[in-house]
Each structure stands twice: as C-alpha cells, then as structure tokens.
C-alpha cells in the first residue's frame, strides 16, 4: 500500500519537476534567448533592462541583470492584460483552442528521458515501450488547437492560418514517421530510455564512437565494416527528421500559418492576453520537445557519449547515485544547443512559399524517406546474407532498391514539370 503511495508521490514529483520546474522556465527563457539572439544577429541589443526593481524597495538603482527577468515581466503582463473575446467568435472552440495547443505539447514530455537514474529512480515520467509513437500520436493533436482557433475566430485570415497549419502538419507527419524507421530498425525497439542506454553503450547514433576500450564504432555490430555504411541513411534520416520537426512546430522557414505578411497574425489574430500566451508557449514547448526528440534519437539523449558514461557506473554496471544529475545537465545542454540552432535557422532562412512547402513534403521528403528505409534495410541485411552465401539475392535486392529509387525520381520529376505556357 505504502509503496504505491510512494510510487505515486515519485511520479507526481517527476511530473511537477520536469514539466513545471524544468520545461516551463525553459520555454520562457527560450523566448528570451530568441529575442537576444535575434537582436545580436541584427546588430541590436534586445531586452537588457528588465531586472530587479530595487528602487521599489528603497534602493538607489535598479539591478538590470542583463534583462534576465524579462520573461517574468512578460508573463505578468500576459496575465494582467484584458482577456478580450470578440463578439463574433464561436466561444466554446475559441476558449478550448489555446489549451488544445499547449496541453499536447506538454503531454509529450512524459516519455522523454531526462537523465539516467537518480538514486535508482529513472528520470522519465512514463517509461513506456512506444515512446516515439506516443509522441507522434499526441503531438498530432495540437493541430486541432490551431484549426479550432482559426475556424472559431470567424475571421478569414485566421481561418487561412488554421487550414494551412492543418495541411502542413498532416503532410510532414508522414515524412516524420518514415524518416525514423531506419533509426528504429537499428535500435530494434521503441522504449526511449533503452534507446538512450544503447547509445550510452555504443556511442551516439550519428557519432557512434566509444573510446573506453580503445576506438570502437557502434555501427560495427551490424556486420563490421559494412555496418559503417548505415551512417549515410541515418544522416539522411536525421536531416529529414529535423526539417520535418521545423515544419511540425511551425517554425521559420515553415511558419506559414502565422505568416504576418499575408495573414495578419494567422490563426491567433483574434487572441489576446493569456490565451495568446498559451499559443505562444505551446509553440515553444513543441520546439523544446522536438529538440529533445532529435537529441534522444540521434545524439545520445542524456548520455555523455564517447564511452564517458562508463565513468559514472560502478563495477557492477549500475549507475552511481548522482549520475542522473550529470546526465540531466548533458541532456539539457544538448537540447539548448538545438534550441539555439532553431533560432539561428529562423533568422537565416526566409519563409517558404506554400506550394514549395507542400512540394518539399510530398515530392521530396516522402520519396527520400521511403528510399532511405529500403537502403537501410538492404545494408542491415547484407552481412547475414553474405554469410549465408545469398549474394545473388542480395544483388537482386540492391538492384530492386535502385530501380525503385529511379522510379521515385522519375515520378518526382514528372510532378515537378512546370505547366506549359499557353502559346
């Protein structure tokens, strides 16, 4: 009885800790980071004034601390602003839409492994065996929030934003799912904690090297030297996955749902105050979850990599009590790196045209991901087939893959043809 209570308590602590203590401030500060980083790129300063208002308490000068309290002030502002609901909107959907964007983004956090173990407790809220699938399933729900917001606003620009977002998310979910098939084929499972553990032992997926027992490549277990070739489909997977995450989170260069030059503010044009803030936070939460997923799948999650994790293990191969903290820091470091990468891309790449966006998703990434699955499969199957002396069958498989690829390219090319100008 007590143990169940303790279990529940531990889960509660994890939920509160990871969601509200770790992620929400991270969201807030990623907004701050975005503003400062953007400012620096554009030769500006960014928010550097909001600090501790010592003068309110009788001090002589305020303490600006580089504007680090800006997110707090922003949050306060959002809460205090008038929560205005226009008269022409569909009230029910208008009200639940912001929640529908924010909640799925935070829900997906529960399967992300934040670290290894802290005093024997895994640093993940729900250690389930279908991690990535769960994330895809839940993250897809957030499209409802945006669609509802656009539709219920009863405003044509908002509606366009909602429709665009809907189409975009559905399109990119396909390449998102297909792109990680080779990755999952290598891991052979869907439990994210185990995936990370595998990477801790064999090196990160994209940097599969360990040095604790001399130089070793983690991919060599798939048929020695031939296994090294797996790195290429994995790299492609990473590329498609990352770009698709950009599209899924509506980040630049794919932020067409809130394309201000065309749609005023997009689906959240009619929103103000905390409801708007929820959209805003949901977007950044999605970005953080996306970064976490990239890190978990391709960059070893919380693992330090390169065989360094062995230093945190005792002789029996169990984690030291404090190992979780080190891993948590490593994980957060990687996630923050990717958040900064997201920001850098936003201020570098101009926005896509909507037809370009759709073509990229359906004509390029979808085909590439399919071919990628076949290539990875052939490479994985090659060593055992050679061992069994089925070289002919292997050649046939390879030939089939090449023919399939060629066919795909041909189809893509025909679709790509420009309509002939009227003579």
């Amino acid at each position, binding site marked *: 009885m007590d143990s169940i209570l303790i279990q529940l308590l531990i889960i509660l602590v994890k939920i509160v800790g990871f969601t509200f203590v770790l992620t929400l401030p991270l969201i807030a500060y990623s907004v701050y980071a975005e503003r400062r*980083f953007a*400012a*620096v*790129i*554009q*030769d*500006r*300063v960014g928010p*550097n004034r909001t600090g501790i208002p010592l003068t309110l308490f009788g001090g002589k000068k305020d303490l600006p601390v580089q504007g680090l309290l800006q997110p707090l002030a922003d949050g306060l502002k959002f809460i205090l602003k008038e929560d205005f609901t226009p008269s022409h909107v569909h009230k029910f959907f208008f009200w639940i839409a912001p929640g529908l964007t924010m909640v799925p983004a935070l829900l997906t956090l529960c399967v992300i492994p934040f670290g290894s173990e802290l005093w024997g407790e895994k640093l993940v809220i729900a250690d389930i065996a279908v991690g990535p699938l769960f994330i895809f399933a839940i993250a897809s729900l957030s499209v409802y929030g945006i669609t509802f917001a656009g539709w219920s606003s009863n405003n044509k620009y908002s509606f366009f934003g909602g429709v665009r977002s809907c189409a975009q998310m559905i399109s990119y979910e396909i390449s998102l799912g297909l792109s990680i098939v080779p990755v999952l084929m290598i891991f052979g499972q869907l439990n994210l904690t185990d995936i990370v553990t595998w990477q801790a032992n064999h090196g990160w997926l994209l940097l599969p090297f360990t040095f604790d027992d001399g130089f070793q490549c983690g991919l060599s277990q798939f048929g020695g030297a031939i296994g090294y070739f797996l790195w290429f489909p994995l790299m492609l997977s990473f590329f498609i996955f990352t770009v698709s995450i950009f599209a899924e989170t509506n980040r630049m260069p794919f932020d067409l749902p809130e394309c201000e030059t065309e749609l005023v503010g997009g689906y959240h044009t009619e929103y103000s105050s905390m409801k708007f803030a929820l959209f805003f936070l949901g977007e950044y939460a999605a970005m953080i979850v996306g970064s976490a997923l990239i890190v978990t799948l391709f960059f070893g999650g919380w693992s330090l990599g390169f065989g360094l994790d062995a230093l945190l293990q005792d002789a029996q191969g169990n984690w030291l009590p404090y190992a979780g903290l080190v891993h948590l820091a490593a994980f957060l470091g990687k996630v923050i790196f990717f958040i900064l990468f997201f920001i*850098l*891309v936003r*201020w*570098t*790449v101009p926005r896509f045209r909507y037809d370009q966006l759709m073509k990229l998703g359906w004509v390029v990434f979808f085909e590439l991901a399919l071919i990628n699955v076949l290539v990875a499969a052939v490479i994985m199957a090659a060593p055992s087939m050679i061992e069994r002396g089925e070289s002919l069958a292997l050649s046939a498989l390879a030939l089939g893959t090449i023919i399939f690829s060629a066919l795909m390219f041909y189809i893509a090319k025909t679709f790509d043809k420009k309509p002939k100008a009227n003579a």
Partner: protein
Amino acid sequence: MAEVKKLKRPELNTSEKLYLFALAKGAAVTLKHAFKSMTGKARGSEALKSSGLGLTMQYPEQKWDDQLPEHYRGAPALVTDEQDRERCVSCQLCEFICPPKAIKIIPGDIPADDPWAKVEKRPKEFDIDMTRCIYCGMCEEVCPEQAIYLRKDYAITGSSRAELLHDKQKLYEIGGKRIGLVNKWNEIK
C-alpha cells in the same frame, strides 16, 4: 514605348538545387554577424558610437547630443539677438501656419520707456503646447523676424500637461541668444 527586357530565371545546378550549401552558408553568415555584433565589431559601430553590442547606443547612459546634425529639428524656441532684443514681434504667422495648432500668442505693446519701444509690438503671452507640437519646423520657416528656431532639445518630458505647455519665459530659456541674424530693427531703423 519603354523597352521591354525579358529576364530569365537563373538556371540552378544540382548542388544549388539541393539548397543545403546555401543554407549552411547563410547560417555561417548569420553566425559570423552575431559574433561580430557581440564583440562590438559590427560594421559602423564605431561611427554610430555603439554601446559594444550591435550598433545600438544605450540611451539614457549614452547620448548622441554631439552627433546631432545641423538641421536637427527639436523643440521650437524663441531667441534673442546680440542686442538682447526679443526678436518676436508677435505677427502670429507661426500661429497661423502651425499644422497642429500648438502655438498660441497674445500680442501686446512694448511700453514707451523700453529701449526698443520703436518696435512697438511683442508677445504678451507666447505658449507652445508641446503635447501638440509635431516638430515640423513650419514656424521657423514662416517667421519673418528670425525669432523662432527649432533647437536641438529633444527630450521634452513632463509629468503633467501643464509642464509641457512652454510659456514665453521657458521658450526664451531654451532658445537663448542667437548671433549673426539680420538685425532689421537697428539704430537707423
């Protein structure tokens, strides 16, 4: 008939079509810029007296007073000349031209015992409502007596409307003495 020039879209080769290299190059440019900006080496930061981050000057701490151009249009003010004569004769042309109707003048006589009694007329009251002033400089342009000038004062603030109503005394305070104007009202005249 204007010449019609037909332009062709540039043909991209495969590596360009891949878009990846352009992406990487773009990111490198942005990053380089960010780095320069952070180390205070952004282009033009020297000339613009940047605070060391980007090109921006940190306003209340740093000011650009010595960088204001000659033609800068700040607060309008009345001036006196080297004869210490208040130049305004309250012809009210500025009041007439002022687009936001910020100027209000009540004309008055110059008393006979004044050394400049021959000028006869001067403003009894001269108010410029700085909450209305749009710094257009029309008053300066229209003034036939070279009496009103837009000075370089730009930080016109106040905590009440009354504070932002510049009266005659305040206007002469801001304006001060201006040397080298045409002295229409001299010993001969």
